């Protein structure tokens, strides 16, 4: 199975549009995974029918038993995450800040701290017209997004390991969820846009991807919005020895397709043609 992650560094460059299009035009057996777990959008264009759902448990959170606690404050001092504030003389754990490290339980002289499981999201296994989709939703404001990403990739592998392609829609950024997303992938497709921010963020996501030893190639979306910077991105790819896969022009059909909840490749439009030729080029190399 080939694992392909579509990422971007900068948000909003068109990762999900490209992923949704590939999901539609790829002719091999495939499973899709939406790893942008705090703002999952792939479901909005793949129209999934949910087959199964299950709770996602993050790291356990500390709980202080008020009947045992003597309010000595040792746990609060030891907590590096400022997760144990005192209110009206009582110490309690702020679950939003608790990382589940258990230092408070270790240092409590009274045995008042226990660790309790907590649900921080939900995982979905769905059917779409193009194959199965594994997606998730993290409770807004919750931690553990990297852990959730690893979980849904594992689920996709265990259920659909016989597919030829695991197609992953990645999160923006270069931190915890992005690293969990591209770990173990064969190929990373970076979708960038012609702006100073797009280029700057491309450079950082490429560096992280290379550190994780995956193949990296690049496409420029909305390339005609700034042809000078599109040129700089092509130069960067050449100098950094990255495979440049092509350009997608700015096309209002993309917004129309998103509004209709469909992949753009269902429309006869310049952006569709560009994505098809990028996919032809990439898939010839993958298989």
């Amino acid at each position, binding site marked *: 199975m080939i694992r392909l992650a579509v990422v*971007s*560094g*900068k*948000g*909003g*460059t068109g990762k*999900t549009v490209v992923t949704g299009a590939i999901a539609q035009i790829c002719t091999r057996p495939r499973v899709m995974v939406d790893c*942008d*777990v*705090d*703002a999952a*959008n792939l479901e*909005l264009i793949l129209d999934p029918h949910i087959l199964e759902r299950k709770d996602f448990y993050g790291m356990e959170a500390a709980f202080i038993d008020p009947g045992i606690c003597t309010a000595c404050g040792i746990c609060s001092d*030891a907590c*590096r*995450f400022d997760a144990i504030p005192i209110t009206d003389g009582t110490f309690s754990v702020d679950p*939003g800040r608790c*990382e*589940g*490290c*258990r*230092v408070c339980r*270790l240092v409590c002289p009274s045995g008042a701290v226990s660790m309790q499981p907590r649900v921080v999201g939900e995982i979905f296994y769905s059917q779409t017209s193009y194959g199965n989709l594994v997606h998730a939703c*993290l409770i*807004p*404001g*919750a*931690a553990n*997004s*990297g852990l959730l990403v690893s979980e849904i990739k594992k689920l996709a592998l265990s259920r659909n390991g016989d597919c030829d392609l695991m197609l992953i829609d990645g*999160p*923006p*950024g*270069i*931190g*915890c*969820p*992005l*690293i969990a997303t591209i770990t173990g992938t064969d190929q990373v497709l970076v979708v960038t*846009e*012609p*702006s*100073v*921010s*797009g280029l*700057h*963020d491309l450079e*950082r996501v490429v*560096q*992280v991807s290379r*550190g994780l030893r995956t193949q990296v190639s690049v496409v420029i979306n909305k390339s005609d*919005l*700034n042809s*000078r*910077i599109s040129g700089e991105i092509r130069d960067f790819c050449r100098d950094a020895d990255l495979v440049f896969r092509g350009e997608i022009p700015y096309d*209002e059909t993309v*917004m129309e397709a*998103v*509004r209709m*909840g469909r992949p753009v490749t269902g429309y006869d439009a310049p952006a569709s043609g560009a994505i098809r030729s990028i996919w032809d080029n990439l898939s010839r190399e993958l298989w």
Partner: protein
Amino acid sequence: MNITVASGKGGTGKSMVAANLAWSLSASDPVTLVDCDVEEPNLHLFFPDGHPVVSPVSVLVPDIDPDRCTLCGECARFCAFGALVAAKDRVLFFPEHCHSCGGCAVACPEGAIAEIARPIGTVTERTISPSLRLVTGTLNEGEVLAVKVIQKAKAAAGNAPWVIIDASPGTSCPVVETLTGSDFCILVTESTPFGLHDLAIAYDVTYQMGIQSGVVINRSDGKDEAAHRFCEEKKIPVLAVIPFERRIAEIQGSGNLISRRDPAWKERFCAIGRACRALWEGA
């Protein structure tokens, strides 16, 4: 006043709003602009002037004294993050998994673990003009503790009549850390189902945190009914609607600011700032 610019969905124009708002307000008041999108900070690209003063951001990680270590494995059993593994002849440490909780040093019965600083990012301060400071948090490539860098960037920003903070996309822990202590949140959205879906999640976070918010609809093609309906339903004011124009995309994309180019835009961004202040003072 402390305003965070957030969005849920990436690429809706948070940095564009934050940079233009800060630049416009700084014509009459001192402003500190803080880049808390530490995974992909971009605001400095819009302000090439100003000498950068860089300070490292470090976290404490275990340093194991091999002479004292008896390889008992207590540290590895304690670590909830899998950052320590007791091998036959030594304890292996994986710094990228370490959350810097300090627990291993407490758990070690031999007192063999000290903690040493490990750099994970930087905070860069620049004076852009006499009334505008830019503070940028940057997470090093390959690191994961974004929250620590955000805390340092906010601490370096301190107080000013206007503190404008650019958040990262998403709604998880970095965004919560960025929003903590803010007086107001500007939610930037775009008029697509993606933008609206993620606006709803981001609004949830501000609501749960008790932070008042207002919406800027960016890159509008005029079909914003759904976003307006959402705002009416939740009783959140729409602070501005910025149309999609190739000219704006080109100016911003090249690292310029529309408010620096065009006094009418400067006035529009000042009006957004005044509206936020009036809502905050009215609350």
